[in-house]
């Protein structure tokens, strides 16, 4: 019913045979031979790449043998699979008896408690190199007993660690240590037995970690919120499609984009160090670091979201006689809202990850706890915190992806 304008296609003619092939293969005709200069350039680039990689290997001291011969690795790996999540309370039993060091004694020294634990030491005095028999009974089964020498000056000397058997007893012989460890004199022999008691409960490490993790998430939230507040107004000034067309507009655009790039180029850990110097150790320094770090990145992401809107509605609203502010309010903002929300949620998720390391430089959050455990060589506790970070970051990652998928 309707007519339209068109150009009819000329009758097509497909040749049955390629003319003038003169016996050569089609592959040879079509294969591309690069000119020698290109081939040489390619070779030079390859050589330079190899040189750079070799230099990099040497400069960074790569030594794979260190990996194969790493005494701490197994402890750390073992701790990773044994995070300190649940624990029992520990009760300590102490027994004491006077003991003389420096003479070979006779008889025995005996220590008992009111709750039925008993330690016999034979003989009742010892000097370096003597064989001393220790007999214990009535302790917790499978616990560890520490034999110490109390100097009476507030210092104790560890002589031996003795495991109890499954009936709570032991009978071992030890060689009395030299004068360097236990100089002659009158001491009190002390036995400490640590035994778990009571039922399993969530460990203190885990509870502290949870508190710190909550603090970390809130730190990231506050940093993100202030980052959003500061970056949204600038993002409109950093969008080429809104600022283009005049010299003034493009100047503002360039200044804003440069500002974004500068704040974005400083790593969050460095910002953390700077902020700790300014406002002192604690979460506030972390929040400030996150804010500065976020303004540039969020601003850039928002600006790019604005630049990717459909120009049509903006054109249409301009045509109605609306001014610039009205055009942005009615033509730009409704289009960018879902993208802005998606960017913000993604960035909160990103900031939670950043916040977990800010503690390493004193910026508060769970990283502060982690660095303490690592420095105290408490690997099981460190593992607890590490796994907590893994769990939260994974959950945030998943949640933010799910929310973004619904928004855009």
């Amino acid at each position, binding site marked *: *019913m*309707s*007519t*339209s*304008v*068109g*150009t*009819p296609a000329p009758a097509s003619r497909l040749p049955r045979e390629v003319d003038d092939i003169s016996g050569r293969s089609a592959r040879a005709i079509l294969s591309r031979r690069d000119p020698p200069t290109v081939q040489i350039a390619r070779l030079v680039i390859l050589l330079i790449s190899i040189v750079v990689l070799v230099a990099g290997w040497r400069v960074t001291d790569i030594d794979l043998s260190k990996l194969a011969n790493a005494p701490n690795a197994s402890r750390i790996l073992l701790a990773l699979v044994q995070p300190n999540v649940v624990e029992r309370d520990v009760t300590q039993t102490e027994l004491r008896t006077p003991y003389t060091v420096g003479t070979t004694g006779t008889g025995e020294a005996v220590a008992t408690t009111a709750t039925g634990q008993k330690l016999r030491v034979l003989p009742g005095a010892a000097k370096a190199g003597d064989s001393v028999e220790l007999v214990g009974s009535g302790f917790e089964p499978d616990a560890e007993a520490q034999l110490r020498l109390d100097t009476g000056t507030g210092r104790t000397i560890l002589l031996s660690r003795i495991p109890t058997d499954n009936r709570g007893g032991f009978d071992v012989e030890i060689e009395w240590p030299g004068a360097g460890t236990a100089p002659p004199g009158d001491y009190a022999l002390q036995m400490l037995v640590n035994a778990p008691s009571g039922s399993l409960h969530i460990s203190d490490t885990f509870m502290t970690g949870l508190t710190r993790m909550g603090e970390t998430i809130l730190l990231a939230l506050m940093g993100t919120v202030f980052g959003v507040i500061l970056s949204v107004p600038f993002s409109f000034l950093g969008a080429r499609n809104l600022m283009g067309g005049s010299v003034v507009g493009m100047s503002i655009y360039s200044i804003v984009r440069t500002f974004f790039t500068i704040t974005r180029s400083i790593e969050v850990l460095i910002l953390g160090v700077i902020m700790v110097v300014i406002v002192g150790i604690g979460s506030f320094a972390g929040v400030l670091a996150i804010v500065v770090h976020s303004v540039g990145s969020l601003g850039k992401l928002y600006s790019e979201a604005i630049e990717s809107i*459909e120009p*049509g*509605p903006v*054109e*249409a*609203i*301009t*045509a*109605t*006689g*609306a*001014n610039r*502010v*009205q*055009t942005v*309010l*009615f*033509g730009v903002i*409704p*289009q960018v*809202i*879902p993208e802005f929300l998606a960017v913000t949620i993604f960035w909160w998720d990103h900031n939670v990850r950043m916040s977990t390391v800010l503690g390493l430089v004193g910026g508060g959050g769970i990283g502060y706890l982690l660095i303490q455990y690592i420095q105290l060589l408490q690997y099981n506790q460190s593992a607890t915190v590490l796994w907590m970070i893994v769990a939260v970051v994974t959950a945030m990652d998943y949640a933010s992806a799910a929310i973004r998928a619904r928004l855009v």
Partner: protein
Amino acid sequence: MLVIERLVKDYPGNVRALDDVSLTVPDGEFVVLIGLSGSGKSTLLRCINRLVEPTSGRILLDDVDITAARAANLRAIRRNIGMIFQQFNLVRRSSVLTNVLTGRLGYVSPWQSVMNHFGEEDFRRALINLERVGLRERAHQRADRLSGGQQQRVGIARALMQEPRIMLADEPVASLDPATSHSVLKYLQQINREGMTVICSLHFLSLARTYGTRVVALKGGRLMFDGLPSEIDERRFKDIYGEEAVEVEIR
């Protein structure tokens, strides 16, 4: 009355989109612009409301020089010129009502629009115009939930909110199927019969013949033909579209 005098538009890269186009459109005409893609139809329409800045020449609407207008004045002039687009150019995520009210922005003070405030009068007009294009029941739906034809009718309602003197239409039915095309053009025809000047670019010559009271053809940015739809015969058709072209019957 719209008067276009010796209009020239050069795009960067030495591209002359409009070359010395002069045209006078008395009130109440339905002018159909035809021509190949790239012949300058869109540029001509966009020069009339200064979405595109002309390089030289003058455009006068009721003796007001559009080409000389400065910012505040330009706003007032644009209010008098409605425009609808090939891709409808609605804000997809906003409601139909919001899109229609947008047409009123040229009258609302910027501060009122910051508060998203439209007056009772604006809502009354929105109601009338939505009724007019038969979409009153759809007022609170998101614009992108509507079919193409419905979206274009929202575009017409938005333009009518301006209470314009003339209506520009840039390929308003090129994204629509033939039946919907007729329904949209009938709305434009009705508006025209109520006295509004319509300038509309179209691809289908048959539609130009049905709805236009006058046909203006552009070729390579120059005015090629200006006359009654019935005057376009085989020879003029080939002048406008080239020797290779034929009028194709489509079902």
